[in-house]
Every structure is written in structure tokens, then in C-alpha cells.
């Protein structure tokens, strides 16, 4: 599957939800709905802040331990973004439905249950941020995420941004990193064998992908050639996707 497709997003796709978004990138398509702030169940109620509830539903079958793990990672990083202190005793519910994931050409992965891994994390993360923006949930900042894999190729260790399922399978280690719009590291999860130095390099690459601000010179957007190879300009993409939605909402102004 081609992993270097440009990301696509649509906001407000579900009319009955408070906010929703559909995002597709690198073969993954995820739809998210956000409802909130709503009344929390008694057991989720927190006296001083809102409870953020993340539910990940796989494309086929029911979620398992891996989904719960991804949910807990998303939940802790999104609670940092949302201004949870503004809504005590409330619940902000985010439901992520995976619609499509890239096929592994080398293994029959069709209808395999509970085989989620870090490769899908950036898509899940990006979709939830877009859906939260569409629901106008007050947030501290926006954030972008990316996945980097270290693949052993011809004896040398190569770093791959947004790896394909095949690359993840063969990778020595896979890393997911998210950065807020103020260039702060928000999420760093890794699996596999790697050294501290490798992690530093991965972090540097991820920061370049997530925190790249488009070079603007006298109103002309300049893309340098070596930057194109670094994957999509996620931050700029997020901004333009939301800007379109806001402009459509405020057409009457």
C-alpha cells in the first residue's frame, strides 16, 4: 500500500454529534465523534475536572487489550490538551471508529482482530484533535502526532516516517510521538529494541515533522525540497482543515 498519500480530513460529518471528523492518511481512515461536556456517570465523576473518555473501535470485531492500551494513551494525552478544569463533574466522550487500515501485502491481515499497533496512533490522535476542534471543546493547544520506525536495511538502521504494516512488522522498534502547537512533547511511546541515541534521533525527526512551520516569505509559501521527503506538513494541514470549516460556519459574517 502507498504510505505517502496526502492526508485528507472532513469536519462535522456526523450531524447528531456535538463534533465529528473523518481523517485518512497513510492508508488509515478513522471517523471520530465528540460529545461533551455532558453529565458523567457517578463512577467517572471527578469533583474538580472533566473525565475524558476515549473509545477505540476496530474496523472488524470488538476491541481487546490493545485497543484499551491505545485508549489509555490517547486519554492521558488528550486530557492534557483539553481544559478539563473548566468542566468539573462532566464527561467528554470521544469515540474513534477505524474504518480502513492498510493491508499487509505479505500477510493475510483481512479480518484479523485486535491487531492494532502504533502505526495507527497518529491517525487516531489527529482525528480526535480535529473532532475536538469541530466540537469547540475548549483546549489549551492543538497537537500533531507521527510514527517513526527504525528498520534494519542492508545492515544499516533506517528511520521511516509513517511506516507501512510491513515495515512495522520488520522494524527493530516503533515510536509514536506527539507535539503540541507550542512545540512541547506531549506523547512518547516506543516498542522494540533501541538505544538512547536512536531515540534522540527519532525524537528529532518527529519534532521536525510535527512542529514544522511552513516557511513563509512575503506571502509565498516556500517548501524546501528536503522537507518534502519528511512526510506531510501536519500542522499546516490541521490549520487549513479547521479554517475551511470555520469559514463555512461563519459565512454570514
Amino acid at each position: 500500500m502507498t504510505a505517502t498519500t496526502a492526508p485528507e480530513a472532513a469536519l462535522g460529518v456526523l450531524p447528531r454529534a456535538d463534533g465529528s471528523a473523518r481523517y485518512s492518511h497513510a492508508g488509515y481512515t478513522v471517523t471520530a465523534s465528540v460529545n461533551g461536556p455532558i453529565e458523567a456517570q457517578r463512577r467517572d465523576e471527578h469533583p474538580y475536572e472533566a473525565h475524558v473518555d476515549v473509545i477505540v473501535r476496530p474496523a472488524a470485531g470488538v476491541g481487546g487489550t490493545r485497543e484499551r492500551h491505545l485508549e489509555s494513551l490517547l486519554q492521558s494525552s488528550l486530557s492534557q490538551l483539553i481544559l478539563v478544569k473548566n468542566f468539573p463533574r462532566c464527561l467528554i466522550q470521544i469515540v474513534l471508529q477505524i474504518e480502513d487500515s492498510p493491508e499487509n501485502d505479505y500477510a493475510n491481515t483481512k479480518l484479523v482482530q485486535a491487531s492494532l499497533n502504533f502505526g495507527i496512533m497518529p491517525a487516531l490522535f489527529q482525528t480526535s484533535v480535529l473532532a475536538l476542534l469541530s466540537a469547540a471543546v475548549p483546549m489549551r493547544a492543538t497537537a500533531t502526532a507521527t510514527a517513526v520506525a527504525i528498520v534494519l536495511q542492508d545492515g544499516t538502521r533506517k528511520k521511516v516516517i509513517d511506516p507501512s504494516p510491513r515495515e512495522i512488522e520488520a522494524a527493530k522498534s516503533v515510536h509514536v510521538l506527539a507535539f503540541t502547537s507550542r512545540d512541547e512533547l506531549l506523547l512518547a511511546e516506543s516498542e522494540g529494541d533501541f538505544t538512547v541515541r536512536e531515540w534522540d534521533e527519532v525524537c528529532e525527526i518527529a519534532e521536525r515533522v510535527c512542529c514544522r512551520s511552513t516557511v513563509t516569505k512575503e506571502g509565498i509559501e516556500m517548501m524546501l525540497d528536503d522537507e518534502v521527503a519528511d512526510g506531510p506538513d501536519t500542522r499546516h494541514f490541521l490549520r487549513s482543515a479547521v479554517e475551511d470549516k470555520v469559514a463555512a460556519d461563519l459565512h454570514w459574517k
Partner: protein
Amino acid sequence: MTTTTGRPFVLPGETVDPSLVPTHKKHPLRLGPGLRHIPPSDIIPTVAGQLVTNPVKNSIWVEYNSQRYIPQPGDLVIAQIVRSTQDAYLASLSPYTASATLPQLSFEGATKKTRPMLSPGSLVYARVSLANKHMDPELECVSSATGKSDGLGPLTATAGTGTGTVFDVSLGFARRLLMARSREEGRVAVLEMLGGEEGGGLAFETAVGRNGKVWVGSESVKTVIIVGRALQETDRGGLGIEEQRRLVKRLIREMR
């Protein structure tokens, strides 16, 4: 996408250019919805929208549209009575949120002996008197200063024989309907058209709640449905004035 130079697009956490913040000799700066102040001097947006300023009132806020109503003091809302307690009604402002309290004595002319009887499910037009993040919101149907209702109270068709129902719209559209000059500022004229010559002079009454609810009442059920549909289609389709005129004409033609 281009935004006009007067209203820049902002995302949560972005820094607001100090040149955009208005300054005034007398009035202090007022921050509207969608902005938060981090002492000493940072003003940071919390939602995605367009930054709007009013130099005369020295205010700045973020204009955006959403679906979920968060109560603010002074807002006019349409609430549905859920149940009654000893001295207050519990009313719902939006689905799945904590219910608001409406004291039984906060109606015009209500005393301990004569209080309005509202059954669960009935609708009231009320003002949010208290909204605090740590407490459930409180409503009132009477002005505490004058003791008059000012049009607030139970929503029933004034003619007596008529019916009414509530339609859901987005919060931004409800706000446009509530504007004093909704045609010029909010670009909605669909209600005027329905009552005017385009709509053949339909007779109906409306109440707009800031919580994204519009109550439409009329003698005939047909009129109620036409007005409600016109409002919802204008909201969802993002129609301009000319498109609203076409919509009204189409709905009237379909009714006949």
C-alpha cells in the same frame, strides 16, 4: 481558504498578535467567549474560530459555531421540565447534561399559595440567572428587579387553540436569530419572509432559546412544520438571503 483581513483565524493555544487587541482610554478590556487570560498579559484562544474585536466597547472574542450549549448568566433559553421537587422544578437545557433548577416562586405573581403548575415535558422560556461550573445552572422566569415576566414563562400558544413545538438548530444560528437586527447583522430573514408576502402572510409566533432551540407556535399544525423546516434547512444548508427566499417559496408551494 482566505479570511478577510479584519477577522483572523485562530486555533487554540496560538498567540494573539498584540496589535489586534483593542485599546481604549476609559473602558477596561473585555474578553468574550473562546479566550482566556493567563496572567500577566497573555490572551490565548481556547477554540478554533475567527477573532472579532469591537473597538468602541473595547472587547475581543472568538466567533465560532457549536452544538453543545454551556450555560452563561443572562442567556434566554428554552427549557423542558423534567420533574418537580418541593420548591423547584428541574429542567433540561440540552440532552445528557445536568438539569437546571427553576424555583417555583420565580414566576410572575407567584406566591406560596399560587404557583404555576407545570407537568413534566412542558416547555418554559427562561433566563439563566446563575451559571457556575461547580453548580447546576439556575433559571428564572421573572425579572428580579421589576417583578415582571418580560415575555418569559411557560410556552403555550397565546391564541388558546393553537399548538407549538420545538426545533433544534445550531447555537450559532440561534444567536443570529436573537440579534436585534437579524436581517442586517445575522443574514437571516426567513421568519420575516414567512410572515411577509413571500410566505403569503403565515400567522405564527416563535421563541428562540440560546441553547439551540426554537419554539414555533401557530393555529395550524402545517404552519408550525413549515416554519420549523425552513429554520432547520436555513441552518444546515448555510443559506444566504436570496437562497432563503427561494426556500420559503418552495415550501409554500409544496404546502398547497
